C-alpha cells in the first residue's frame, strides 16, 4: 500500500460516478471548503462528471487567498525594517496588498526569504543572531501546529530573535459564518482532509445537526473526492444528515491529540480578518501570553494605511461561494496567473487559478 495509486483507480472511479448518477435525484448544491480539494476537482474534471442536478461550489479554504490586504501590508511593513528578515511560504510572496507585494519589496531590497517549513525560518534565526527574523504564520489547523511546535523549540532553545506574525485561521467558525450569511444554500459540504487530520470530525457536527447539511471529510485523490460526493448524495437523498469520514486512513474522529495539545499550549482563539468576508468572531489564532515574546504583533510597531480592494475584483464574492471566476470580468483578461489582480489568482490553490489552469481560461 502506497496510499496514492490505490485511490486513483479509473475503473473504480467510473463505478462511483455511475453510482452518483443513479442515486442522486434532488437538486443538490455542494461546497468544498479546501483549496486542495478545488485543485483536485478541477484537475480531474470532477465537476464535468457530475449529473446536471449536482452543483459544486468552492469555498474560502485557501489560506493565502483569505489573508486580508491589511495583513499583507503589515508583512511588507515588517520587511521594510532594516534589521529584519521576513520569512514566508512561497504562495504569499506575490499576493497583492494595498500598494505592493512582498515580491516587489524584495526586489527593492528588503530581505525576504521563501521557506518550505517554519523550521527553516527558525534555522535562519539561529544563523543570523544580529537580525530579527519574522515568520509570516498563515494557514489553517493543518499548519498552525507546526508553528506551535517551532515556538516551543524556540522557547526551549532560548532563541531571542525569532518572531511570528500570527495570521492563522480556523475552519469551523468560517463555515458557520458562510452558512449564516445565507448567500448560498448548501445541501452538503466536502470537509477539509488535512485540517481534519488535526481537529478530527467532531467540530463539524453542529453543521449537520443545526443546519441539516450533509458533511463528509474527504481525502485528495480523485477516488477520495468521488467517494465523499457519493456519501453526501446518499445522506441528502435519505434526508439524514451527519458527519462522516471518507478519508479514514488519514483522519480520526478525535484528530491528532498531540497537535491539538501543542496548539493549545501556544495559541488562543481570537477574531480574524478574512479577505472578502471581514472580521469573523473566534475564527483565528493569536499567540498567548506565555509565548508573547515571539509575537511580532506586540514586539514591532506596525502601521499600515486603510486597505482598498482592487477595482472590479470579485475575489470576495468567490471566497464566499457567491460568485464563480466566470462571473468576474477581470478573470482571464487582465487577471491571469502571470499578472494576478486578486489573491484567488495568485495561489495555485486559489479558485481562480485552479479554474484558469484546468477549467478553461476565459469564460465569457
Amino acid at each position, binding site marked *: 500500500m502506497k496510499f496514492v495509486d490505490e485511490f486513483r483507480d479509473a475503473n473504480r472511479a467510473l463505478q462511483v460516478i455511475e*453510482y452518483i448518477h443513479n442515486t442522486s435525484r434532488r437538486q443538490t448544491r455542494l461546497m468544498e471548503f479546501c483549496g486542495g480539494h478545488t485543485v483536485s476537482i478541477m484537475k480531474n474534471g470532477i465537476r464535468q462528471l457530475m449529473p446536471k442536478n449536482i452543483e459544486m461550489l468552492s469555498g474560502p479554504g485557501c489560506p*493565502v487567498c483569505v489573508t486580508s490586504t491589511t495583513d499583507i501590508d503589515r508583512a511588507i511593513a515588517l520587511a521594510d525594517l532594516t534589521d529584519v528578515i521576513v520569512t514566508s511560504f512561497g504562495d504569499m510572496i506575490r499576493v497583492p496588498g494595498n500598494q505592493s507585494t512582498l515580491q516587489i519589496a524584495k526586489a527593492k531590497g528588503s530581505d525576504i526569504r521563501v521557506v518550505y517549513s*517554519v523550521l527553516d525560518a527558525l534555522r535562519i534565526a539561529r544563523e543570523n543572531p544580529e537580525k530579527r527574523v519574522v515568520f509570516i504564520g*498563515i494557514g489553517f489547523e493543518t499548519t498552525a501546529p*507546526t508553528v506551535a511546535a517551532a515556538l516551543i523549540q524556540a522557547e526551549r532553545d532560548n532563541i531571542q530573535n525569532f518572531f511570528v506574525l500570527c495570521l492563522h485561521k480556523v475552519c469551523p467558525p468560517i463555515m458557520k459564518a458562510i452558512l449564516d450569511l445565507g448567500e448560498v444554500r448548501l445541501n452538503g459540504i466536502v470537509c477539509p482532509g488535512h485540517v481534519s*487530520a488535526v481537529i478530527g470530525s467532531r467540530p463539524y457536527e453542529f453543521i449537520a445537526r443545526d443546519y441539516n447539511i450533509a458533511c463528509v471529510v474527504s481525502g485528495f485523490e480523485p477516488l477520495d473526492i468521488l*467517494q465523499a460526493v457519493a456519501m453526501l448524495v446518499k445522506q441528502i437523498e435519505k434526508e439524514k444528515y451527519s458527519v462522516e469520514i471518507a478519508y*479514514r486512513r488519514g483522519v480520526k474522529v478525535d484528530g491528532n491529540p498531540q497537535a491539538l495539545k501543542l496548539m493549545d499550549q501556544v495559541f488562543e482563539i481570537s477574531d480574524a480578518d478574512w479577505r472578502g468576508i471581514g472580521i469573523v468572531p473566534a475564527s483565528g489564532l493569536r499567540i498567548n501570553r506565555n509565548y508573547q515574546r515571539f509575537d511580532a504583533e506586540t514586539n514591532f510597531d506596525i502601521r499600515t494605511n486603510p486597505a482598498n480592494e482592487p477595482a472590479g475584483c470579485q475575489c470576495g464574492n468567490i471566497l464566499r461561494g457567491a460568485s464563480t471566476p466566470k462571473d468576474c470580468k477581470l478573470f482571464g483578461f487582465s487577471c491571469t496567473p502571470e499578472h494576478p489582480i486578486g489573491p484567488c489568482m495568485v495561489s495555485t*490553490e486559489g479558485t481562480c487559478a485552479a479554474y484558469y489552469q484546468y477549467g478553461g481560461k476565459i469564460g465569457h
Partner: protein
Amino acid sequence: MCLAIPALVDSIDGEKAIVSIEGVRREISIQLTPEAETGDYVLLHAGFAIGILDETEALQTLDMLRQVLEVR
C-alpha cells in the same frame, strides 16, 4: 496550502525522522506524531508529520467502496 503527502519513515532520531517520498529522502520533524515508528507512512506537511496513515483503514475504505457499489 494544506497539502500533505504520504512519506515512509526510514529511521527515527528523537524528534526527527528520515523519510522517503517516492525515493527522495529528507529529514522531517515528528514532534506532532511522537508515536510514529520506522515503517509507518506519515502525512507530511511543511516539514512535519501531522498524522500517521492507517493501512487497515485504507484497505477497509477500498473494500467499503466495493460493497457500496455492489449493494445499491
